[in-house]
C-alpha cells in the first residue's frame, strides 16, 4: 500500500510540474501586463514601464524561456512565486487568501458530504415513498437555483431576522470583526460571520451528493450480492447497509475528492456576496489585471488540490475496494 501511494505521488508531481509549466507559457502568451500601463492617459514613459515589467519578471521583451527559467529558479530556491504587475509579491497574498478560503470552505464541504450522503441513503432505501419524493423535490429545487440568488436570498432572510429581533445575530460581510483577545468571544464572532456563507456553500453540495448517492445506492441495492446476503439471513436493511452501501460509496468518494479544487476556486460568487477575500475572487482579479504570476500560482494551488483529491480518492477507493488494492 505504501509503495502504491509513493508511486502515485511521484506520478502526480510529474503531472503537476507539466501542468503548471504549460500554464506559465499559456499565461505569458495571452496576458499582456504592458497594456495595464499603456491604457493610462498619458501612459508612463516606455523605459519606466519596461523597468517595472522587468522587475516583476513579466516583460514581454524578454524571451519567455528566460523568464520561465528565472521564475522556476526563484520558486525552487526561495519559494518565491514572483510579483504582480503592481510589484506586490504573489506568494503572501495567496497565502492569506487560502487561509480565508479554508475557513470558509472546509466546514461547508464536510457538512455537504455528510448530510448529502446520509439523505441519499435515507431516500434510496425509501425509494418512491413520500419521504423520498419530498426530499427529491426539495433537492431539485435547490439544484436549479443559482448560487448568487441563493446567497442573496439567505442575506435578505438574515437581515430581516436581525431587524425583527433587534440585534445583530448574523453578520453578512467578512469573516471576522471582533478585535479583542477573548478566545470565546472571537469564536462566537467567527461563527456569526461563518454561518450564512456556510449555508450557501453547503446546500448545492448537499443536494448534488444526495441525488448522486441515491442513484449509486439504488444501483447496488438490487445487485445479486445483496440478494445473496438476504438469502444468508440478513434482514433487508442490514444487507443494504453492509453489502450495498460500501460499494456505492466508492464513486461518491471519488466525486468528493475531485471537488476539493473546485470548492476552493469556485466559491467566487459566495465570496462576492459575503465580501470575503478568498482564493476565488483573487483568481478572477489576477486574470483581469493581467497578473501572470498570480494566475499561475492560483493554478498551481488548484492543481495541488486536484491531485491531493485524486490521491485521497485513490486511497479511499483502494481501502473500500480490494480489487483495486490487490491489482
Amino acid at each position, binding site marked *: 500500500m505504501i509503495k502504491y501511494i509513493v508511486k502515485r505521488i511521484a506520478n502526480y508531481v510529474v503531472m503537476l510540474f507539466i501542468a503548471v509549466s504549460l500554464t506559465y507559457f499559456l499565461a505569458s502568451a495571452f496576458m499582456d501586463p504592458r497594456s495595464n500601463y499603456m491604457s493610462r492617459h498619458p501612459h508612463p514613459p516606455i523605459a519606466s514601464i519596461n523597468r517595472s515589467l522587468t522587475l516583476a519578471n513579466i516583460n514581454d521583451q524578454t524571451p519567455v524561456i528566460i523568464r520561465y527559467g528565472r521564475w522556476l529558479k526563484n520558486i525552487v530556491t526561495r519559494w518565491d512565486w514572483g510579483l504582480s504587475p503592481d510589484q506586490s509579491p504573489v506568494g503572501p497574498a495567496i497565502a492569506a487568501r487560502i487561509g480565508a478560503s479554508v475557513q470558509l470552505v472546509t466546514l461547508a464541504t464536510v457538512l455537504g458530504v455528510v448530510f448529502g450522503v446520509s439523505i441519499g441513503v435515507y431516500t434510496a432505501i425509501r425509494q418512491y415513498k413520500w419521504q423520498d419524493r419530498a426530499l427529491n423535490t426539495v433537492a431539485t429545487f435547490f439544484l436549479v437555483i443559482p448560487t448568487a440568488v441563493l446567497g442573496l436570498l439567505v442575506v435578505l432572510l438574515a437581515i430581516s431576522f436581525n431587524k425583527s429581533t433587534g440585534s445583530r445575530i448574523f453578520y453578512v460581510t467578512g469573516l471576522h470583526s471582533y478585535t479583542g483577545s477573548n478566545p470565546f468571544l472571537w469564536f462566537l464572532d467567527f461563527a456569526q460571520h461563518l454561518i450564512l456563507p456556510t449555508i450557501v456553500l453547503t446546500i448545492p453540495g448537499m443536494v448534488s451528493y444526495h441525488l448522486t448517492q441515491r442513484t449509486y445506492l439504488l444501483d447496488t441495492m438490487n445487485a*445479486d*450480492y445483496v440478494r445473496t446476503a*438476504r438469502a*444468508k439471513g440478513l434482514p433487508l436493511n442490514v444487507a443494504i447497509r453492509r453489502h450495498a452501501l460500501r460499494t456505492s460509496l466508492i464513486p461518491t468518494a471519488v466525486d468528493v475528492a475531485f471537488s476539493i479544487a473546485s470548492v476552493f476556486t469556485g466559491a467566487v460568487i459566495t465570496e462576492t456576496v459575503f465580501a470575503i477575500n478568498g482564493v476565488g475572487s483573487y483568481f478572477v482579479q489576477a486574470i483581469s489585471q493581467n497578473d501572470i504570476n498570480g494566475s499561475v500560482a492560483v493554478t498551481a494551488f488548484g492543481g495541488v488540490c486536484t491531485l491531493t483529491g485524486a490521491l485521497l480518492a485513490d486511497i479511499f477507493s483502494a481501502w473500500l*475496494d480490494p*480489487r483495486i488494492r490487490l491489482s
Partner: protein
Amino acid sequence: MTNQKETQEKKPVLRVRDLHVSFASEAGVVRAVRGVNFDLYRGKTLGIVGESGSGKSVTSMAIMGLLDKNASVKGSVRYRGEELLDKDDLAMSKIRGKGIAMVFQDPLSALTPVFSIGDQIKEALTIHNPGMSAEQIHDRSIELMNLVGIPEPEKRLTAFPHQFSGGMRQRVMIAMAIANDPDVIIADEPTTALDVTIQAQILEVLKKAQRETGAAVIFITHDLGVIAGMADDIIVMYAGRPVEYADVDSIFAHPAMPYTMGLLGAVPRSDRGSDKRLVPIPGSPVNLADLPQGCPFAPRCPMATDACRHEEPELKPISGLEGQLAACLRADEIASKGLTFHDVYQVDDRTPSKFAHIPRSQRRKVLELKDVCKTFPVTSGGFFRRNVGKVHAVDGVSFDVCEGETVALVGESGSGKSTTLTQVMNFTEPESGSITVLGTTLSKKHMSREKRRELRAQVQYVFQDPMSSLDPRLPIYDVLAEPLKAQHKSREEIRQRIGELMRLVELNPDQVDRFPTQFSGGQRQRIAIARALAVNPKLVLLDEPVSALDVSIQAGVINLLEDLQNKLGVAYLFVAHNLSVVRHISSRIAVMYLGRLVEVGDTDDVFDHPLHPYTKALMSAVPVPDPQRERSRQRVVLQGELPSATETFAGCPFVGRCPLMPTLTKEQQARCMGERPSMRVSNEASRGDGHTVACHFA
C-alpha cells in the same frame, strides 16, 4: 436411525399450496405464478423445469420471501408447519440461511466484491449463531470449504471473490448455503452460467452437500439433461402453472402433456447422431400479462381441441400412470394410446443437401486457417504503460471449412474460440499465420478495396444476442437493406430480395416495417440470419446463435439453419458452448484448449470415439436427458480449472489437469511437459477422414 428421524422424513419439510404470485406492471397485472402445489421431503430433490417466464424462479423467490415489494403473493408456504407468507422480513431472515438456503444462478455477481471469502462465510455463520467463537468460525469455515472442494482453504479464506473463477465462486455459494445445515436448499439454475466441465463438478458438489446435510433440494433449471441426473421428482411449468408432475423416470419415459413432450423432443442430444430432426414447438411463449382463455399452451399445442381453448385444465392424476399428474384434457387419451412426441408433433422432412453426394475432399474450401496466432499484451504500471507479458489467445490454429458443411469450434470459456472467430471477422492478415477466404489469402497490402468488398460479401455473421445485435431504431426493412446497400444494389433489387429473405426465414414479409422489439427472441434471431444471408454469402460465422433462446424456440432456429444450409449450400463456422447443439448441427468439430486445437474430426467420430483426454472429459461432462443413462454413467470429472491465460507452456497446456498423466511413466510425463504435441492423424486406422489429435499418447 432414530424413530424421530423416521417420522420427520414422512412429514414434508416444506408444503406449498396454491401459490399465486402477481406483479403490477405497465402492461397490466403479470400473473407470474398461478397455483403451484408440492410437498418437499428431506433428502429428496424436486426438479422444477420450464422455459423463461414459466414462473419457476418466481416460485423459489416467493418461498424465500425475496420478491420485490410490488409482488403480491397468495396461498400458503408451510415450513415445518409454520406459515411463511405471513412473516415479515425480519421474521423471514431468521429462517433464510438457517432453515432454507439458496444458491443463485450467476456466481460472478452473487458474492460481494469488497469482502473476503472468509468474511462472507463467517457472516453466514454468525448471523444465525451469534455466540460462535472466532476459532469455531474459522474451523467451521475450513470444514465447509473442504466439503465443497476448494483447495488450500486456509489460504483462500483471505482471498476476494475476483480472485476466484466462476466455478470456485459457486462452490463458495454452496458452502454458505449449507453453513447452517439447512432443511431445504433451493438451487436456481446453479450451473447455467458455467462451462460444461465445471458444471459437472458443481453438480457433484451439490449432491455431496445434500448427502452431508440431508436437506431437501429444489433444483430449478431449463436444462433437461441436468435435471435427469439430479432430481427425484419433476414439476414441469408453463405460463406460471405446473403442467406435469411425476417422478423423473416417468417424465422422461412417458410424458403425458404435449408441452413436456415438445420440450423433450426439442432438445438435441449429445449421445445421438443428428439423423433425426428436432421437434420445434410452434408459436412463441405466452404473454403473462395477457393470458389466453383456456389452456395457455393451447395456441401452440397440435392436439388442442375447442374444449382446450375454453377451460383451463387442472393438474390431476392420469388414469393408468400411477403417481403422474398432468394438466391436460387429453392426458388420459395420450397415456392410454401411448402417444409419443413423434405422434403428437409434425416433423417435416429435412431438405436434402446440395452437397450430399460430394465427398468432402472434392468440395471447395471456403475458409482455411493456417497457424493463426493472436496475442494480447498484458500491461502494468501507472504513468507509463509497459508490456509485462502476452496472452496467447489463439496459438497456432489451423483448420478449414468446405462448402456446405458446418464446422463447430468448441471449448471452455477462455479457450480462444471466439477470438478465433474474431480473427476471421477482422478480415485482415492475422498476427502470424494466414487466413484464406475462397482461395484468396487475406493481406493488408495486396488486396484492392474492390476485391476486399467482394470477398466481404461472401462472409457474414450472426451474433449471440439478437436483441443487442439489431439496431432497435431501425425497422426490419432497413436492417435487411443495409448489407445490400453496401453492395450497391438498386432499390428495386433490394425490395425484392427482402421479400425473398423474409419468406426464407419463415417470417411474414408484411412485417418488414416493424421494429426489432416487436419480435420475439426467436424471430429476432431469424431476422439476424436473414440479414446474414441477404448478399448470398458462401460462409456464415455464427457466434453462439441459439444460446440466448429458450429450448422450444432454439429447435426451430436450428432446423432453419440446417434447411438453409441444405438449400443454399452455405458453410457455417459455428461457435457454441452447448455440445448437444454442436453435435446436432455440425458435420465437423474442432476442440480448443487454451488457444490451441487439441482435436479435429468428423462430429460423430469425435463424439463417439474421442481421442484426446480433454475431449473425452468434455464429452463425458455433457448431461444427457435420460435419467437411467445419467445414473449409470461414469464421468471423467476434470480436476481443477483452466489455468491462467498468461501462463506459458513449453509442452502440452493440458498437463496440469490431464487424467492420462498419472498413468504415464516418468519419461513419458517429461515429454508431455517439455515437448509441444503437434496435430497428427490418429493411430487408429478406422477413423474417418481427417481425424487429427494433438496428444503424444492418445
